[in-house]
């Protein structure tokens, strides 16, 4: 890979089991894994840096953290209070009135992060234009302060109706609360957007995780050498400065899988692909995301069933991974997942006492996983245990072990194909026009088979599929999103849009300079959310300062996405958005010239189970070791490629090579022939 600036940059991705490091030192890339230390994640980071000999040399650290996420999932956040407009303190608990599950008599809803007794009200009211109908009763705020203090509340969220249209009341309340020593998160600062429930939920989440995240980043910062630039991954695929991440921790809540997607995009580019689907199959779940030049985004997600309204990558997750358990339901049909054997005891093949059949065990029975090559041989797989548990379910299925194992793969792959269809077909995109970037421990094992099912013509496997998230961290830009609801008719919107945009820009410039960044190093991307009057869904189009042009773009986009437009209907401007990007200069990825082709020598032959023209056959196939494959190495299926953190299964009919950037790029003859005959090729 082509690499940029001469400085020591580290991407550190803290996961549940491992903390992954990718170091960019001059032109060299170094990969390292350290066992995570969940009780104090800083320790694993320092240990890793020490192991890499970097504790004094690191200049820039980009961090993917699960501190805020785990605080919500494990409900370990700050004791949080909520102050609302009088009459509306229950909005947080009522939500949108819908129940999470239609047919489940035993369903429960998670208790709100702020219980009723810490939700207080203040008399005040604005109308939809921000005009004051009832001035703020400061005595209500002061009484709430007394009650919060008595209850031991540390952090307070404020959400008044229509505060985005006029923040005067929220500002005053925030001022009083901050003077009283509380950590405060006000809705007009976090999310100045209409819809009171989503805004309250997002603001409360920010208040709930903010103090914790602030303390964590402070500790991390003080443990690193002075002057290190610390950036933190956020859900929208960009990074934030450490300082901002502490204040707006809610932006990091869904960042977990985002770095992997950003990494997949970089890898795809380096292999010459712009349009790919990232496919990250881990132990318990699989994340997929469509990347059409840039990753697809959406404006809302959930964490622990609480909505978070923030721009984020449109990642779809299914509960099927290497550790997923196969089982039969009462109607006699085979299912795989969502229950997982996890890391402990893990699949039976781990030899730690797992007694239920998993995808990993099936892969062992099929010969796809090589027992002494797992994690570079660090963990010998227990083949007998795998055969035993697969044998048990095979007995119930009245099939042989190998056939049952292949069946488990089939069902798991059907789940994953479903996930890919959700992010492509269901959004109006044809997967046949995309490549598949496969990573995570189990992704490269099933990628080709999955691609065949979906008629995806190409599979790209990065050089380090087990640490792609950490690598992705090194390719992220600094991205800040700003928004404000205006809700005005487009024909008379121009003045209010200009003034809203001026406010957002001023705010952005202030934030940049507090991070020590000059405005000229950033690019500014204003946009508008538009809708037809009376509708309740909107589309985002770029805003170049002229509303008419934006409206024109809106009609065209509507036509493209939904198949029709109504050019004579009145259009409403819902939100003004501003995205500020400070491009990363850490790493640059470009396709490398096609290398000279050569045929590698296998390290051995393995006997594995394959499907050939719908028949199940056992065949001897060559196995290659990934670190012996350099650019230009030709690979022809059927074959196996083993490496430290994954195994690649190349089925019959697939072939490819290692490209100049060390990516393995594989193509299916069959799918390509189909494309040719159906004229689907690009």
């Amino acid at each position, binding site marked *: 890979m082509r690499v940029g600036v001469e400085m020591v940059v580290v991407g550190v991705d803290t996961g549940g089991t491992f903390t992954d490091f990718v170091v960019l030192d001059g032109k060299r890339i170094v990969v390292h894994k350290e066992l995570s230390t969940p009780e104090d994640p800083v320790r694993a980071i320092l240990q890793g840096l020490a192991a890499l000999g970097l504790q004094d040399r690191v200049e820039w650290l980009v961090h993917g953290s699960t501190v805020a996420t785990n605080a919500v999932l494990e409900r370990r956040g700050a004791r949080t209070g909520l102050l609302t407009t009088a009459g509306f303190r229950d909005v947080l608990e*009522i939500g949108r009135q*819908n*129940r999470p599950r*239609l047919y489940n008599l*035993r369903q429960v809803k998670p208790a709100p992060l702020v219980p009723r007794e810490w939700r207080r009200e203040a008399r005040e009211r604005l109308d939809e234009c921000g005009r004051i109908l009832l001035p703020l009763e400061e005595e209500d705020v002061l009484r709430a302060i007394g009650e919060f203090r008595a209850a031991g509340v540390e952090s307070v969220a404020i959400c008044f109706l229509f505060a985005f249209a006029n923040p005067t009341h929220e500002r005053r309340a925030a001022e009083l609360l901050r003077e009283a020593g509380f950590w405060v998160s006000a809705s007009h600062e976090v999310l100045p957007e209409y819809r009171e429930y989503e805004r309250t939920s997002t603001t409360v989440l920010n208040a709930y995780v903010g103090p914790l995240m602030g303390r964590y980043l402070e500790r991390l910062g003080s443990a690193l050498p002075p002057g290190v630039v610390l950036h933190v991954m956020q859900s929208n695929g960009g990074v934030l400065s450490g300082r901002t991440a502490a204040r707006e921790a809610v932006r990091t809540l869904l960042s977990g899988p985002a770095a992997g997607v950003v990494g997949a995009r970089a890898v795809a580019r380096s292999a010459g692909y712009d349009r790919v689907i990232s496919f990250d199959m881990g132990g318990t779940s699989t994340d997929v995301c469509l990347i059409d030049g840039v990753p697809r985004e959406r404006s809302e997600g959930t964490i622990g069933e609480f909505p978070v309204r923030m721009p984020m990558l449109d990642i779809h997750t299914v509960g099927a991974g290497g550790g997923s358990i196969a089982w039969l*339901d*009462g109607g006699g049909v085979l299912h795989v997942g969502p229950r997982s054997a996890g890391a402990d005891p893990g699949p039976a093949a781990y030899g730690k006492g797992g007694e239920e059949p998993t995808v990993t065990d099936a892969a062992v029975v099929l010969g796809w996983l090589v027992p002494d090559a797992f994690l570079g041989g660090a963990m010998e797989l227990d083949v007998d245990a795998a055969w035993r548990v697969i044998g048990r379910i095979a007995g119930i299925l009245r099939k042989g072990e190998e056939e049952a194992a292949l069946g488990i793969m089939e069902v798991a792959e059907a789940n994953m194909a*479903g996930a890919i269809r959700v992010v492509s*077909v269901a959004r*109006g995109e044809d997967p046949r026009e995309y490549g598949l970037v496969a990573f995570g421990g189990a992704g490269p094992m099933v990628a080709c088979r999955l691609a065949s099912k979906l008629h995806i013509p190409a599979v790209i496997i990065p050089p380090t599929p087990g640490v792609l998230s950490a690598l992705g961290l090194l390719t992220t830009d600094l991205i800040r999103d700003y928004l404000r609801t205006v809700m005005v008719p487009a024909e008379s919107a121009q003045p209010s849009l200009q003034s809203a945009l001026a406010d957002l820009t001023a705010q952005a410039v202030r934030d940049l300079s507090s991070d020590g960044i000059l405005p000229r190093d950033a690019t500014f991307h204003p946009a508008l959310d538009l809708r037809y009057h009376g509708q309740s869904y909107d589309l985002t189009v770029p805003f170049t300062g002229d509303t008419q042009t934006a409206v024109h773009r809106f009609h065209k986009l509507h036509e493209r996405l939904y198949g029709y437009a109504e050019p004579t209907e009145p259009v409403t401007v819902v939100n003004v958005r501003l995205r500020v990007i400070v491009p990363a200069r850490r790493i640059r990825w470009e396709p490398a010239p096609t290398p000279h082709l050569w045929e590698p020598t296998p390290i051995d032959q393995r006997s594995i189970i394959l499907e050939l023209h719908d028949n199940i056959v056992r065949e001897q196939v060559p196995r290659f070791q990934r670190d012996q494959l350099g650019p230009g190495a030709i690979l022809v299926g059927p074959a196996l490629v083993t490496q430290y953190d994954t195994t690649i299964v190349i089925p019959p009919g697939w072939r490819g090579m290692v490209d100049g950037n060390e990516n393995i790029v594989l193509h299916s003859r069959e799918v390509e022939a189909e494309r040719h005959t159906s004229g689907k090729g690009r």
Partner: protein
Amino acid sequence: MTASETIDPISLAVFTAALSAIAEEMGAALQRSSYSPNIKERLDFSCAVFDPEGQMIAQAAHIPAHLGSMPDSVRTALDQCAPFAPGDVVILNDPYLGGNHLPDITLVSPVFLTDDPTSELLGFVANRAHHADVGGISPGSMPIATELFQEGIIIPPIKLWEGDKLNQAALRLILRNVRTPDERRGDLLAQYAANRTGIRRLREVVARYGTTTYRKLSHAVLDYGERLAREAVRLIPPGTYRFTDFLDDDGTSDEPVPIAVTVTADGETLVVDFSGTASERPGTINTVETVTKSAVYYVLRCLMPEDTPMNHGVFRVVRIIAPPGTVVNARPQRAVAGGNVETSQRIVDVLFGALAQALPDLIPAASQGTMNNITIGGIDPRTGQPFAYYETLGGGMGARPGLDGLSGIHVHMSNTRNTPVEALEYAYPLRVTRYALREGSGGHGRFRGGDGLIRELEFLTDAEVTLLTERRRFAPWGLQGGESGMTGRNLFIRQSTDGKEETITLRSKHRLTVHRGDRIRIETPGGGGWGTAG
């Protein structure tokens, strides 16, 4: 059962996934290209796939009310519009011919192997969507009516497309009868696009398997659904279980409306008999049989594992007896708009009431048992344009054995989202003055019923208000010694002539004219409690 013996559990799993993907993708296509927020955001639609005999083999249902009624649509389309050719699309909303109430419009398409009319019929795809207006005496087409003709345009099963050619005359006739024709046209075209997606995808699946295997697999899928349903039925101890509950009234008089059910289980099948239920009424609370079936299937579905596929095999384990001429099987041309939303809830209540005797450790106490339908119309003084606002409100869920009921939530046959206060005040000349949990409204007990809601609105202009609500007289009952939840209340608050505030309690179904500055407060019912409070 014979066909499925030769189908293995793996092929069946993969095939079931492929079928439900078809229904889901039809839904995604419909949602993407539909026009109205009701379909796009509230997801008030369903999509399904059928075999050539009209048996449903897969369904993506977001709305329980559609569970049983989609198959009836296909059956009437078969009865009334056969023979079919590729590209035919049948439209219908007639509740007495396969629909459930007029706003729900269904499109049914036959699926042939190819576009050649002599090619093999593979089955049908259908989708149903709730349209925001289908004409009739009030905007939104959910009036307090006394006959079907007042509720909107009635569309019997007709071919709106023949061989992919749109019948422009029929479409013009339909659109001339609704208040928002452009929106309706957009939504109908989206429904058409959804069926096109279904046809294309079903052909792909058949191409993958070949027609013979496909046939075998679709039979096996039905048997699979039946086996899962039978497992659920086996849990019910054999016996006969009776229960009666009441609707407050039908909106034309104060007379309560009894709904009675006798559930007989023999370990293999269920017989659900509604004999003893009130005769059909002049008011809007009548249901057609298909809605009654949906309520029964909803209850059965709640007893089955959560990720069960929904298909015709499931229906085989239940026999439903709904005597014609009763409110659970009204005859033409009774008004039915309210039956679909309110009576369906009470049918669920009596079914659970009966089953609670058989399955005391599983069945919850009664939930709020209403959707609290509110329609407000008038002229928006800000624009001079007419407005129509329709909302439903959540309430208390009944307590479960071992669990409290959830508060402020939609129960059983409904699950639509609210209109945010801030969205509402932008869109309509209304101000929400309170939106809160109705503390203490859930029934006491060892486990508490969920609390209802309070939603108070101030009118910023004169308006017409229609309330279609229930459980204002007959409270949601508790179980095993748990107390009832509180009944709901509809309150009207205005300044009287002497300047004092005056509060008037409204009936459960009420139409009134309000003036600027008046307020209305809806307090929704709490859920019943479970077990004696310790």
